[in-house]
């Protein structure tokens, strides 16, 4: 005779618990955490280089790079002079809270104002793994489909901000900005939307200002 054991337990509760621990640690060290997600090639690393260029004079920033293989992105970030640690997931398509916890030994948390995590380029899996971040930024570029939010709803629902990157390429694509905004808002009415071009610099001041505001509100 079988016995039924009621659990009603979230499957990712271990990751969620660990993320909650990290969040407490970050709060006590007064570090703001930003998790950047996107599909591969949306320009996350370029946007990050620009962000570091304008913010690292006023803020102490650290960067965790997540990739399946190579430390190419970390090498790029290191050139900006900001401390960076590369996590190579060795096949896993997302970062988990445990990987972030281990990476923290490479930083002096008490000296940081902002820790930026660049997640593995993937719009599906990273959405399910809380890393203890205060701000989740999804980057979408104008060379992708404007229906991306509808195709990857979990990611766009969980993000606080959507950055539409490569805005300079709009004349050469069929990407409809109004449509992508409508699609994202239909899933996540609260989502904040910014437009940037790392090539022309359009929107970068607004983006940096937004990140600065996030860091300041985190310290209040």
């Amino acid at each position, binding site marked *: 005779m*079988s016995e039924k054991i009621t659990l009603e337990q979230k499957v990712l509760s271990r990751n969620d618990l660990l993320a909650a621990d990290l969040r407490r640690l970050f709060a006590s060290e007064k570090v703001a955490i930003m998790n950047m997600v996107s599909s591969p090639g949306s320009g996350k690393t370029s946007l990050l280089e620009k962000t570091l260029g304008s913010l690292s004079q006023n803020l102490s920033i650290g960067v965790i790079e997540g990739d399946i293989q190579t430390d190419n992105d970390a090498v790029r970030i290191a050139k900006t002079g900001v401390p960076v640690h590369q996590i190579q997931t060795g096949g896993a398509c997302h970062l988990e809270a445990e990987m972030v916890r281990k990476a923290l030994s490479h930083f002096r948390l008490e000296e940081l104002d902002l820790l930026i995590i660049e997640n593995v380029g993937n719009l599906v899996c990273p959405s399910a793994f809380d890393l203890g971040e205060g701000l989740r930024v999804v980057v979408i570029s104008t060379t992708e489909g404007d229906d991306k939010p*509808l195709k990857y709803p979990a990611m766009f629902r969980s993000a606080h901000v959507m950055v539409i990157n490569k805005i300079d390429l709009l004349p050469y694509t069929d990407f409809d900005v109004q449509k992508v905004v409508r699609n994202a808002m239909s899933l996540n009415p609260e989502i904040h939307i910014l437009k940037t071009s790392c090539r022309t610099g359009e929107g970068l001041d607004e983006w940096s200002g937004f990140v600065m505001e996030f860091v300041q509100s985190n310290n209040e």
Partner: protein
Amino acid sequence: MHELSIAIEILDIVEREAAKHGAAVVRRVNLRVGDLSGVETESLAFSFDAVKGEKDLTRDTILSILRLPVKIHCIPCDGEFKGAGHMVVCPQCEGLDTQLLQGEELEIEDIEID
């Protein structure tokens, strides 16, 4: 493929609970998966079969997955609606002033053991 991580996590939870209750065999795991959870059901079932291994405890365990459609509450209409696909737009007023009632679940409801 985060379904593999999820499958491993499910197996961990199940083994822990089974040990707690002195189970010899886990017959079935009943899982609830919302349409907004981002989980691919077929891939999860495949991953679970791949990781459950040859241990007597879980060799024949069936992973039973209940998909939960998106359900929203529209505040201005004061009504409960089924979301159209993945959307949280009210189908009546087409407004966005809605609350999600169901759709983001990824949880083990219960396990059946011997």
